[in-house]
């Protein structure tokens, strides 16, 4: 383990950070893929060469960008933006055979269906290989050379990892440590140690958490922060709180207008009254969101960015808009 982390508030741009590898972590359904894709588009638009890695064989990036499934290996989805969908099977083959040259271990595991479930279930081999593939992407150079000792410019300036939902996402980040605990020595141990070093190198790797302004996602996010801090020395850049309802008549001088408007509306009935009820509800949700934002901020001591709720469909323009908000997030 390295020395203790610098305080997270030193980070200038909490969304992307200075690190080349960024893991986007959060509960299912909070918008991780949308945020990862928006970040990728924004960084690519600035001239960075970006690769988005989707874990567990997910295919959200292609759905969001309206292009054919990206599959494996990495495929171009936009200017300077590649994406790859890392399935456990593909990653295991690729990582064990090509990167580690453990062809024999691969054959052993995958030609023997009595061993495979135990390797994956108990030892977490497929998780290790999936995270190993991220290290593999990090190693790749522009000229096709490869490995920790290669020189020359990298193939990707930025690798954004769209993690599976929290529980599995955290298991993925811990997979290297798990394998080290089990094997204790040998080549798989050594390789796991290399992955663990990359994850805990705070100049290279960071985590961005994503959540919603709701009870369970906020609680789970704070639990994740605690557990990541206690298990690993991985940099936590910040928390994005997604789909925050816009404020309505929040300033003092507007509140008098608001009260008048509600009275007027209820006298009018029909759409006017329904709109006012909607407004009351939105103000209430906004108030709740503010409380959750405060709780996240004080509970995690991390930078918190609120993203507005996007109404209607989510197209490329909205993704660029979110990307610009994320990029502009200064501490």
């Amino acid at each position: 383990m390295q020395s203790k982390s610098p305080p997270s508030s030193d980070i200038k741009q909490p969304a992307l950070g200075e690190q080349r590898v960024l893991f986007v972590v959060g509960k299912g359904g909070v918008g991780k893929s949308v945020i990862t894709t928006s970040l990728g588009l924004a960084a690519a638009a600035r001239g960075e060469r970006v690769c988005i890695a989707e874990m567990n064989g997910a295919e959200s990036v292609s759905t969001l960008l309206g292009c054919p499934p990206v599959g494996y290996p990495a495929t171009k989805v936009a200017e300077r933006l590649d994406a790859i969908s890392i399935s456990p099977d593909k990653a295991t083959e690729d990582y064990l055979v090509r990167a580690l040259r453990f062809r024999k271990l691969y054959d052993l595991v995958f030609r023997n269906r009595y061993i495979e479930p135990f390797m994956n279930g108990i030892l977490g081999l497929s998780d290790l290989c999936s995270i190993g593939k991220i290290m593999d992407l990090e190693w790749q150079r522009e000229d096709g050379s490869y490995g920790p000792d290669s020189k020359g410019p990298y193939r990707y300036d930025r690798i954004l990892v769209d993690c599976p939902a929290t529980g599995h996402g955290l298991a993925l980040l811990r997979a290297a440590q798990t394998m080290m605990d089990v094997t204790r020595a040998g080549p798989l141990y050594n390789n796991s140690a290399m992955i663990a070093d990359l994850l805990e190198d705070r100049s290279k790797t960071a985590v961005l958490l994503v959540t919603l302004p709701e009870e369970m996602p906020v609680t789970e996010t704070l639990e994740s922060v605690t557990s990541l801090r206690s298990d690993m020395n991985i940099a936590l850049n910040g928390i994005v709180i997604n789909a925050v309802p816009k404020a309505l008549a929040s300033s003092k001088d507007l509140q008098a207008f608001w009260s008048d408007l509600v009275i007027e509306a209820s006298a009018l009935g029909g759409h006017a009254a329904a709109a006012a009820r909607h407004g009351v509800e939105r103000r209430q949700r906004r108030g709740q969101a503010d409380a959750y934002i405060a709780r996240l901020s004080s509970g995690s001591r991390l930078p918190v960015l609120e993203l507005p709720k996007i109404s209607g469909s989510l197209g490329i323009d909205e993704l660029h808009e979110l990307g610009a908000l994320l990029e502009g997030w200064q501490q």
Partner: protein
Amino acid sequence: MSSTRPSLSLQDALADRKVVVVCGTGGVGKTTISASLALAAARTGRRVLVMTIDPARRLASSLGIDEQLGEETLIPLDALTSQERELPEGASLHAMMLDAKSTWDGVVRRFAPNAQSRDRILSNRYYQRAAGSLAGSQEYMAMEKLLEVVRSERYDLVVLDTPPTRNALDFLEAPQRMMGILQDSIIKWIAPQSGGFSAARAGALLFGRGQQAMFSVFERFLGSDVLSGISEFISSFSGLLDGMRERASEVMKLLASEETAFVLVASPSRISLDEALYFHDRLGEGGISVRALVVNRTQPVEDVIAKQAPSSPFEAGFAPSGARGHQALLESLWESYQNVLRQRQLDDRSINELHLHCGTELPLARIPRLQGEVHDLQALSTLAGLLSQS
């Protein structure tokens, strides 16, 4: 706004069942709907248990309970208003959260052929890991517990909240897969009846005598004690497996029978409804029919006016005002209101598509997003009321 009328209400569709399985993809509010359905059923006079596999303590927090709910726990309804807290004579609401590890321990304790074999499993270093992480183990344990509870006849109804999954049949197939793996492994990997587990011996059994070279590969990468540990773990399960298979097939029969109803939960977004549609079809392929649909957290706009809004607030009757602040406020309110109506129309279209696809005779409950959030008993009670009217 549904154009078709289901022949049954949600309540009717679930009335005489012994088991209600609540399924759907992640993030749609399955746990909340499960607890609300359970409360609604308790109000009809039944003894109800709601069981969840959710590790996030969501069930406990929405039921207003601080404890972990590791055991069947009676839910006190004191926090509710006087009309809402009364259950009919004999009715009750219990809840529990499944903990895969402790259910595993229970199965091993109860069904191990002898004390020696029991201790051998419980003390195995890989058992700890496997109990939580072996694929299908959570699902298998849910079935074990379900069967135990149904057999005990302590309840008239068990509501089962399933873990989130992308694949609808995972919950049903995972236990079979897990047992298949254990079974095959035991045949192939059966350990010596007596004496220690030598890695070389395990290797010989596993790969055949001619394949020692393969074993040495395994040993080189992982170390020999990993292999012998796993081998010991698997072989110690041989005495348990017949019973496990028997009970699993009994549960499958129960789930496919008329005594069980599957309820599919979705949220009103296009993506979620598409997933629900896929879920419905996959369940059908697996021989399971969905008995009811719940679309959770729909836009809370009154039905009567859920149509095109006037394009400006003034058409709706608001008086123009000279004050700029007032004007801006009114415009932003109107924009937001129109967005909600538009969203509601889009959602409605998707919901109707789902309903048509699954069959309009199926009851479909639309549960509006409540003001505030559902993480206390009062909100749950409101939801239960809405569900029982659906």
